[in-house]
């Protein structure tokens, strides 16, 4: 048994529609390259570093599961013990969990989204979870500031960039308990805070600058109960977590091992914890005690409670989810840029990574925060800035690539200019193609001289 007695479920998704045309039958979301490594590898290596080596990876779709499974067994054969499970597409994160819930046996389950790129140690979340005996602990991280960090594409001109609104989170004054969470469409509506929870804690900090990072620690029994009882629940983020937060003062989930597991506290539930939090601040004159006479024997608090906790990642930690095309570009940029420690590569003196087998023509420059993978060739007088270029690409002369991601086996002919775009594998860009803020699907051919701006190019 693992030392932490935590089981890990990685929800690797499938062919996410929001990432079209980047994902396809051949490339499921989990295998999208971030700095020329599948995005899933970031989670797997994070878990490995945290000594969490027994994993279940749930993939939507049989084909995608085969692809992901194949890649994992190739890459992590002696390092991790991974079981890949496939679920039908569109079952949602709750559905995915439902499919594997019966195999779970450990006391607590760590659930991580496969598209998470972070350096927050999962052990820290697990430890917080254990410390509080929580029903659920969620990782919250500062909401990402979207858009490229320099000018070029949208958002660059704004003087003060605001973090993206991902969630509205309510925390207690000690920032340990999760008291309110709004997700998705709720974020833009009025904030509806439950009075009973506010009353218990007295003061709630409501923040809009935190993001639910989709790393959760659940008490297994709680999770299994919810999955079983609430068969309509579709998503962890939108259903299970808000449900647990809402009902924390009046728990409906089974309490075996929930309240009694803590040997030190007989009935010290989250409600009383929340109350204690505020009680220590009360410098009440003794007449207060008289008024609410302590001799009054109230019935024991029959109401069941559970705790919802939060682990808030430090500002210095990197945390992002690859769940949109913008995020794909941002993460690629960050991983070879400001969060370069995540990439696992060692950077050259010019602060870039050029594989020894890559060939550069004369007067071709590759700027800092760039990556050029093995076997790629660049012609003369090319310029590459803040971009990732994959393996075995053939790039002609006079090509300018900035703020872009070029995947593997891409052919770019002379005189092309690519800005802020994503070029998938096996694409051919003929001469003098100009792309700005475009996505080009795999196998696509962009004809000579065509210019595109903010388009998604894919075969019909």
């Amino acid at each position: 048994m693992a030392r932490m007695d935590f089981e890990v479920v990685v929800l690797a998704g499938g062919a996410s529609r929001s990432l079209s045309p980047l994902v396809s039958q051949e490339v499921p979301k989990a295998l999208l390259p971030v700095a020329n490594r599948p995005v899933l590898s970031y989670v797997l290596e994070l878990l490995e570093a945290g000594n969490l080596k027994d994993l279940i990876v749930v993939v939507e779709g049989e084909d995608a599961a085969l692809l992901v499974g194949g890649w994992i067994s190739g890459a992590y054969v002696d390092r991790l013990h991974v079981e890949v499970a496939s679920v039908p597409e569109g079952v949602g994160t709750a559905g995915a969990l439902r499919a594997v819930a019966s195999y779970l046996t450990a006391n607590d389950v760590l659930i991580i989204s496969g598209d998470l790129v972070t350096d927050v140690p999962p052990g820290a979340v697990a430890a917080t979870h254990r410390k509080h005996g929580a029903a659920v602990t969620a990782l919250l991280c500062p909401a990402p500031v979207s858009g490229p960090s320099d000018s070029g594409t949208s958002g660059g001109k704004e003087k003060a960039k605001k973090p993206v609104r991902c969630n509205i989170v309510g925390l207690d004054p000690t920032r340990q308990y999760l008291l309110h969470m709004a997700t998705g469409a709720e974020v833009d509506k009025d904030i509806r805070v439950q009075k009973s929870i506010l009353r218990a804690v007295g003061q709630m900090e409501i923040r809009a600058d935190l993001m639910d990072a989709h790393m959760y620690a659940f008490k297994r029994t709680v999770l299994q109960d919810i999955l079983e009882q609430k068969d309509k629940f579709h998503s962890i983020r939108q259903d299970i977590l808000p449900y647990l937060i809402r009902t924390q003062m009046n728990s409906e989930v089974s309490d075996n091992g929930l309240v009694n597991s803590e040997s030190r506290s007989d009935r010290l539930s989250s409600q009383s914890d929340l109350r204690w939090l505020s009680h220590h601040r009360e410098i009440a004159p003794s007449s207060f005690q008289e008024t609410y006479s302590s001799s009054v024997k109230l019935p024991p608090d029959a109401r069941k409670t559970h705790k919802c906790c939060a682990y808030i990642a430090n500002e210095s930690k990197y945390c992002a989810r690859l769940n949109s095309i913008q995020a794909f570009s941002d993460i690629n940029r960050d991983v070879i840029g400001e969060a370069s420690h995540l990439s696992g590569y060692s950077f050259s003196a010019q602060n870039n990574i050029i594989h020894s087998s890559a060939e550069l023509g004369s007067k071709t420059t590759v700027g800092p925060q760039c990556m050029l993978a093995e076997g790629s060739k660049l012609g003369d007088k090319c310029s590459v800035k803040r971009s990732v270029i994959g393996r075995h690409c053939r790039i002609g002369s006079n090509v300018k690539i900035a703020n872009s991601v070029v995947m593997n086996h891409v052919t770019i002919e002379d005189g092309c200019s690519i800005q802020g775009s994503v070029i998938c594998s096996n694409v051919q860009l003929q001469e003098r193609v100009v792309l700005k803020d475009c996505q080009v699907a795999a196998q696509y051919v962009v004809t000579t001289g065509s210019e595109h701006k903010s388009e998604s190019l894919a075969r019909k």
Partner: protein
Amino acid sequence: MAQKKGQRGGGGAADDAEVVARVPLQAVLLADSFNLKFRPITLERPKVLLPLVNVPMIEYTLAWLDSVGVEEVFVFCCAHSQQVKDYLNTSEWMKPSARLSVTTIESHDAISVGDALRVIYEKAVIRGDFILISGDTVSNMSLAQALQEHKERRKKDPLAVMTIIIKHSKPSNLTHQTRLGTDEVLMAVDPETKELLFYEDKADPSQRVISLDKLLLANNPAVYLHSDKQDCYIDICSPEVLSLFMDNFDYQHLRRHFVKGLLVDDIMGYKIFTHEIHSNYAARIDNFRSYGTVSKDIMQRWTYPLAPNVQYFESCPNMKLDRHGVYKAPDVQSRSAQIGAVTVIGSGTIIGDRSLISNSVIGQRCTIGHNVSIHGCYIWDNVTIEDDCKLNHAIVCDGVHLRAGVVLEPGVVLSFKVEVGRQITIPSYSKVSLRPQPSVQDSDEELEYADENIEVIESPSIISMISARNAEQTADLSAMENSRLSEVGISGVGYIWSTYEGEHDEEWRHSIAPIPETKLIELSHRDHEDPDVSYHDFNSTPVSGELQPDSESTGFDDGDAGDSADFDKEVEATFHRALTGVNQENVILEINSLRLSCNKSHADCAGALFLSVMKLGLVAPHSSNNELYQNTAKEINKWKDLLKHYLKSVDEEIEVILKFEEICLEIATEFSPLFSVILSYLYEKDVLSEDAILSWASEKEGADESDKIFVKQSEQFITWLKEASEEDEDD
């Protein structure tokens, strides 16, 4: 109004050296609480003059204002203004040696804080930032920091017009009120700037969810939402506050109208900030419970230096503090009486043997007999308590006389000079006064405690006033029980005020008595049985867990249905007046005005009238369908002119047919077998035209089978109609 005295140097901690033209720190003290919570006592004496640990409340407020460096105070008096003025004129504050300049402003037509501030605005006496405080506030906080913050903010942002002082105070989880007996206040505050973003002091208890405007977070990454803060009702205001009250003359209540008004108004952009005090004391006496709580806090010296034995108030005699917080004036006579913890006994009071007193305040020159037990009571001056009385958590005003063996149950308030006869038990939460209860008690809190022109309830709640001391005989217990407990007894003087409907359940909240155990248990049970179940039904909504069933969305249709039912009733009532011989013309007139006031159409009137007519047919005795038909036909015949008045077009006629269907289905199913016959009768009598019937039938063609039963029933009649009309055309 001229400043009475020259500037005073050095005393004000809040002096801002940078201000060139130095404006003295001013304060507006409202010597009127503009509510009725201290009735019946306030019928006779203004609240600010009520003794709080044997010192009038206003003394505490003035002493605090003096201590924080306020130089000019404008005391706004309204109710019992003469009493307030007389008091102030003889007080130390008016003596030439006083540092503080106290000026009274009198107005008799002000009924709210808003009115008061408008009067003050008109007097044009406020020249700079001022402190707005009510004369029933006790505090020992230092204002320097709050004032400094306020001024700095003002320099940067002239729209920051007000700083309100708040204090941590967590409401009870069961009663949802603070220890001061005030309702919990929900506030949202910007953690950085301390700007107040949301204020709600009257949250609807049935709502489980607080809804905050999404714009709240638009400019701030985070806000603090508090339910654990208490509003101290000490405000630092800029002069703009007064002009804002002038501009918005519908602002009455300082919090409910002014504060909330500014918060929701994003056009003007005025801002309100908060200043939280931590170790200092500040509380406003809002109700009897806060009166008790603050009294105890004073005795326990949380309000130091405003404590009973500190020579702060000139009027305060030299109290001696014994152990366990017992304060006794030097001339108190109590030989074998046991005086327990936290008690103040004023000078000249005599306490008989074997009496037990604890947690109480006893005023000056009281006479307390033997074997009396007094616990948690506030007894004012010149009170006489005879032997063997038992007082528990009561307020006993000046000059009250309790005869032997009287028992005051928790929460009793005896107003001035009430006399209670022997062996009487005054039940919990009773309020007894020599003044009869005013009949019209406007539930609106803004209402001033009326001065002299009170209307008197002529009701059974008035207690027999047996003022004479003739019947000193032993009270006939059974007779007493007959005449309800609400007697002050033989040889008693006073009226027991009845509580108003619905108020009684809440009586415990504001009383000085501790909350009864049974109440707490009941509340905790309710708390348990009444969990946030509203989410159960959301299981059926698979999409999003955050979607909470919206409690406000209980159908608009319901309201509408009730509305039209009401309208039907009104019309029916009007119609019945027609039966009793009112002229038909007048009935039409009345129904028309009803129609306009309810915003209804002619069709609605026709439907309602038709319903009334049909009901007439129904109420007439009948044993068979045939008889019913006869009755109905008679009524229709009788009222067809009235009906026709409203049947101006086909649409209205269709409405009547639809109404008829409804009647048959829901209101009076007896009619359902008769539908087609009555329909044809209506046709015969020209009430309904053939067009209407035919278009009704065709309208119904597409309807559900269940909707078509009456069309089917009348099929024969309809086909006949159709044929007849075809024949007409043939002709």
